[in-house]
Each structure stands twice: as structure tokens, then as C-alpha cells.
């Protein structure tokens, strides 16, 4: 066996032992050439086909079963070669080469068949063009359907976004507008083209904190978290307020390429809030005022009822006495006293009326008044008193010569101060009375200073402005003047205070709400 193998290899390319086929057998020309030509043609075909296939594979790189096709190519090439050698043997009996070639062909064919069998399942699933066409059709139909749904979704979104009165805007990472809704166009009266592709800096945003806006947008891109804040726009002399929400649009892969900004106009709410606050403050002030007024009314009620009940009590006692009295003279005295009582009652009711009048006269006409003019008139009206007491009256209204006030009230106030100063003068010296006005913040301050007997404020301070509260034996002291003055001042929102030193004098300070 081994010797034969050795022999085979040594003599591989030799003809020894074999005749050319022409010599081997009864080959007629026809028969011989039929055989030779057929084999040559077969070889040609078996050569051309693989070339075409290889070219095909080379050109169409996407071809499936490339491996299989290349195997087939090899298989066909080998087969072809065997046919070529079969023809060549007619002249050159290379039988050993032939055997080896056949062996090679066998291996390749066998391998090819095996591979084919292996690929068979795969080959079975391969779709024909008609089948593929059908599949494409179905897929196309599905896509069209999905597309329609998407379009519908988009239309709905668009309708929603345009119907909402809130401004909706989308911006990309370069802080450029990629989408704006109708509300923005309505609010700014610009076209869409004005906005798309522009940054907030390029657009005409009136007096809006653009830096703050852009910084917030950048923050949302960084942190991927929504930011909500309030923003102010000044449109002429109107201020508009918006609640701005900057929302990150995050994809499935947790990436952010756009943000959506929704701006809700909250001007009405903000203004309502302001008004509510103001109303509340007003109500609180009114409430405070009412509490004070209520207290005052309680006081009046107490004081006045007492001052009416007393004389009435006296009337009753007098009547009882009259019934039992026999002496005519005493009877007459009783009737006199009766008259006095009724006078007192009448006066008290008069005072009550005055107090009520002050409250009612709040809407009385207020006009621009001149302090000097009014004081001079008053001094004329009490000129006799001034002359008799040799009172020296001075004034300095230069810092604030005028006031918008009720004439009746101002006259009453000044007269009361003046007459009090004269009434409570010191007998040790000539009375000197000085009036002065000045302005402090929003208030007009009027002071009346005298060098009279003064008031012990520690002892009598609380009685000073009270009704019927007297503390001076001066028979003129009725306890009504300052009470009414205080009421007149307070009715128009002012205050009056007194400062005094016994034996030196008094200074009254009035604070008017200035106009």
C-alpha cells in the first residue's frame, strides 16, 4: 500500500503506464471528438458559471447564503476541471492527476451537500418576492394607520395648546424657541416667525427680567427638574404678572433636549390679592375706629344720662316739697328752682345735640383756610375781653399759613383755645398768648401757648378733655369747651394734647391731617 502511494506521488505528473486515450480503444474520430468537445464545453460552462456567481457575490455584498454560493462555485469549478482533464487525457494520459482531481471534487461536493442540508431550514424560510411584497403591503398599511393616529394626536395637542389661554413655548438647548402657541401671539401681537429660532434676548420683551428667565431655563436643563416662579412684565403703566412653569421634556433614555415653558397670566389674581389686602387693612382701621367711637358713645351715654337724671331728680323733689309747703315765700323759691332745673336740662340736651352735630357735620364743606385771617376775625369778635385783660396775642403762621379744613370747626377750635387762655390767665402778669403752625411729615401742627396759671396734669390730666369735668373754681369753668374742641379735632382725624406747668403756663398742641 505504502509502496503504491510512493509510486503514485513520484509519478504524479508522468504518463507512464498509460496510453493516450486516442490509443486506448476503438475511438472513431466522430466518437472521440464528440467526447472531447462535450467535455471542453462542459468545462467552459463550469468555469463561466462560477465566475459569474463570484462576480455576483462581489457586486451584491448583501446577498444571503454567500458561504453557500462560494462553496457551490468551488464545487462547480472542480467539476469543470475534471471534465477538462478528461479531454486532455486523449493526448496526455495524466491519469494520476485526474484521480487526485476527482478526489478533490468528491470532498468539495460532499461538503457542499452537507452545507446545503444544514442551510435547508434557513433556505425554507426565505421569502419570495411576492411574499415580500405582501408583507410590505401589510406593514405599509399598519404604518399609515399609526401615522394617522399620530397626526390626530398632534392635531389634538395643537388644538389644546392653542385653546389654552396660557402661553406655551418650547425651547431647545441653545435657548432658541422651537414652538410657540397662539396665546403668545395674541399677547404680543407678533407673528410666529418672529419667535421660532430666536432666543429671548433677541425678542422684544418689555422690561421683563430676561436674565432671570434664561438662567432658570438653563437650570432646568441642568437639573432636569421643573422650576415654577412668578414673573413681572411692565406694559406701559400696567403691570402684568405671570406664573411661569419651566418643565423639562425628558426622553425614554433620560435625555433632555427641550423644555416646555407654560406662563399663566395671574395679573387678576395678584391685583385681587392686593385689593383684598388693602380692604383688610381698611377694615381693620375702620374696626379700630369703631371701637373707639363705641367707647366714646358709652361715655357720652353715662355722662349725659347722669346730667339729665340729676335735674330731673331735683324736679321731683321740688314738686314734693311744693305740695307740702305752706310758706308762700318758700313756695316761690321752689318755683324758681324748678325753672333753673329745666334750664339745666335744656342746656345739657343742647350740649348733647352739639356733640351729635359734630359727628354729623363730618361731610361739611372743607376749603382752603388762612390761619391768620381767621385768628384776626376771632380777635375782633372778643376785642373787649382782650382789651379788658390787656392780653397780648401773637402768632407765626409762616411755616404753614393755610389748611384745607372746615371753617366752622377751625373757628370753634381757635376761639376755644383763645378764650381758655384768657380765662385761665395768671393775675401776676399780663397774659401772653402765642399761636404757631408748622409742618411735620404729612401733618400740620398748631400750637397755642399761654403764660397763665397752668394745669396740674398729674392730678387733673385725665379730666382735662372730659365732659363736665372741671377742676377749677372759676365759675366759668363748665367742662364743655375742651370736650367739644377735642371732638371737633378728632372727628376729622386729628389729635390734641396738652403740656403744662403750674404757675408757668400751658401749651396745647393740635395735629391736623394735612391736605
Amino acid at each position, binding site marked *: 500500500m505504502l509502496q503504491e502511494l510512493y509510486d503514485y506521488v513520484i509519478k504524479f505528473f508522468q504518463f507512464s503506464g498509460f496510453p493516450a486515450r486516442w490509443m486506448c480503444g476503438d475511438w472513431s474520430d466522430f466518437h472521440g471528438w464528440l467526447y472531447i468537445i462535450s467535455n471542453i464545453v462542459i468545462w467552459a460552462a463550469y468555469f463561466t458559471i462560477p465566475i459569474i456567481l463570484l462576480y455576483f457575490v462581489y457586486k451584491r455584498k448583501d446577498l444571503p447564503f454567500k458561504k453557500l454560493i462560494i462553496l457551490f462555485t468551488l464545487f462547480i469549478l472542480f467539476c469543470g476541471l475534471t471534465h477538462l482533464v478528461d479531454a486532455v487525457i486523449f493526448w496526455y494520459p495524466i491519469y494520476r492527476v485526474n484521480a487526485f482531481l476527482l478526489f478533490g471534487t468528491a470532498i468539495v461536493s460532499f461538503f457542499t451537500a452537507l452545507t446545503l442540508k444544514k442551510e435547508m431550514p434557513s433556505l425554507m424560510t426565505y421569502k419570495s418576492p411576492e411574499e415580500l411584497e405582501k408583507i410590505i403591503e401589510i406593514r405599509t398599511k399598519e404604518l399609515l394607520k399609526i401615522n394617522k393616529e399620530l397626526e390626530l394626536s398632534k392635531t389634538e395637542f395643537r388644538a389644546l395648546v392653542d385653546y389654552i389661554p396660557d402661553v406655551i413655548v418650547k425651547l431647545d438647548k441653545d435657548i432658541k424657541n422651537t414652538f410657540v402657541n397662539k396665546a403668545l401671539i395674541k399677547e404680543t401681537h407678533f407673528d410666529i416667525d418672529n419667535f421660532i429660532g430666536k432666543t429671548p434676548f433677541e425678542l422684544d420683551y418689555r422690561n421683563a427680567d430676561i436674565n432671570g428667565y434664561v438662567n432658570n431655563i438653563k437650570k432646568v436643563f441642568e437639573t432636569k427638574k421643573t422650576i415654577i416662579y412668578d414673573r413681572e412684565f411692565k406694559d406701559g403703566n400696567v403691570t402684568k404678572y405671570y406664573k411661569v412653569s419651566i418643565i423639562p421634556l425628558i426622553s425614554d433614555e433620560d435625555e433632555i433636549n427641550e423644555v416646555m415653558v407654560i406662563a399663566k397670566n395671574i395679573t387678576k389674581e395678584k391685583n385681587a390679592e392686593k385689593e383684598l389686602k388693602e380692604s383688610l387693612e381698611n377694615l381693620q382701621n375702620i374696626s379700630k375706629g369703631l371701637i373707639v367711637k363705641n367707647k366714646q358713645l358709652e361715655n357720652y351715654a353715662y355722662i349725659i344720662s347722669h346730667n339729665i337724671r340729676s*335735674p330731673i331728680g331735683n324736679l321731683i323733689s321740688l314738686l314734693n316739697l311744693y305740695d307740702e309747703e305752706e310758706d308762700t315765700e318758700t313756695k316761690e323759691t321752689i318755683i324758681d328752682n324748678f325753672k333753673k332745673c329745666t334750664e339745666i336740662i335744656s342746656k345739657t340736651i343742647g350740649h348733647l345735640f352739639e356733640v351729635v352735630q359734630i359727628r354729623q357735620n363730618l361731610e361739611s364743606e372743607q376749603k382752603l383756610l388762612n390761619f391768620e385771617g381767621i385768628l384776626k376775625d376771632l380777635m375782633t369778635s372778643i376785642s373787649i375781653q382782650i382789651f379788658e385783660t390787656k392780653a397780648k396775642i401773637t402768632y407765626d403762621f409762616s411755616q404753614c399759613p393755610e389748611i384745607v379744613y372746615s371753617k366752622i370747626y377751625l373757628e370753634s377750635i381757635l376761639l376755644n383755645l383763645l378764650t381758655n387762655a384768657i380765662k385761665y390767665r395768671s393775675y401776676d402778669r399780663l397774659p401772653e398768648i402765642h399761636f404757631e403752625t408748622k409742618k411735620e411729615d404729612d401733618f400740620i401742627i398748631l400750637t397755642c401757648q399761654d403764660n397763665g396759671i397752668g394745669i396740674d396734669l398729674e392730678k387733673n390730666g385725665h379730666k382735662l378733655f372730659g365732659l363736665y369735668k372741671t377742676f377749677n373754681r372759676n365759675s366759668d369753668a363748665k367742662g364743655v369747651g375742651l370736650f367739644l374742641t377735642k371732638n371737633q379735632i378728632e372727628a376729622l382725624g386729628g389729635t390734641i394734647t396738652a403740656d403744662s406747668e403750674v404757675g408757668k403756663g400751658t401749651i396745647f398742641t393740635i395735629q391736623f391731617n394735612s391736605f
Partner: protein
Amino acid sequence: MSKTLNAVCIIDDDEIYQFTTKRMIEKTQLVKKILVFSDAEKALEFIDSTISNSEDTPEIILLDINMPIMDGWEFLEKYIQIQPKLAKKIIIYMISSSLDKRDLAKAKEISEITDYIVKPVSTQQIKEILIR
């Protein structure tokens, strides 16, 4: 025969009330002297002066609350201070036209006040006070 009182003191700034009350007391004929003061301070001065002369000290005082310069409460404050020096205790009636519960409550707290009477005072009430 009821005991006659030496002196009764009326402290009230209301002249007409002074007149009617004085007249009512006079008619009872139970009091020798009727002292009338419009000024509580003057009344105090008088009472003070009777320390040495205890006969002149009034047995009863009819005291008003609402008076100028010194009112009834202020009078009582000062009176309580000089009271220990007096030979006898004075019976004090607080008489006022005030119906205010606060005044009534305040009067109740002061032991020196025997009673609180609301004006107008009737002849009957005067008699009852004096007969005591």
C-alpha cells in the same frame, strides 16, 4: 320722742339739691344744724377743725359722688385718714344719681359708707336716715 341730731352735713355741688334736701331735713325737726358744702375740700377742712371741738362734728354726712375739684371718692380717701382722730364715727351715706353698678360695688367695698342711695331722695328716706 326721737333723738335730735346735732349736725348733719350735706356735701353736694348741686345748689337745687342742696335746697330741697335742706328743706326736707328742716321739716323733720330732728336736726339742730344743717351744714351745706358745695366743695368737698372745704367740708374736709371743717371736719378737721372739729377734732378739737368734738361737739361740732356732724353725726351724719350725705355725700355726693360727682363733684368738681374733689369728688366723693377722693373725699372718702382723705376722710379715712383723719377719721381715727375724731371722737365719734360719722355715719356716711353716699347719695348719687348714678345707677352705675360699678359705683354701687365700689361703695359696698368701703366700710365707712353705711349705705348707697340713689337720687332723688324721698322725704321718707330722709326720715329713716335721721331716726337712726
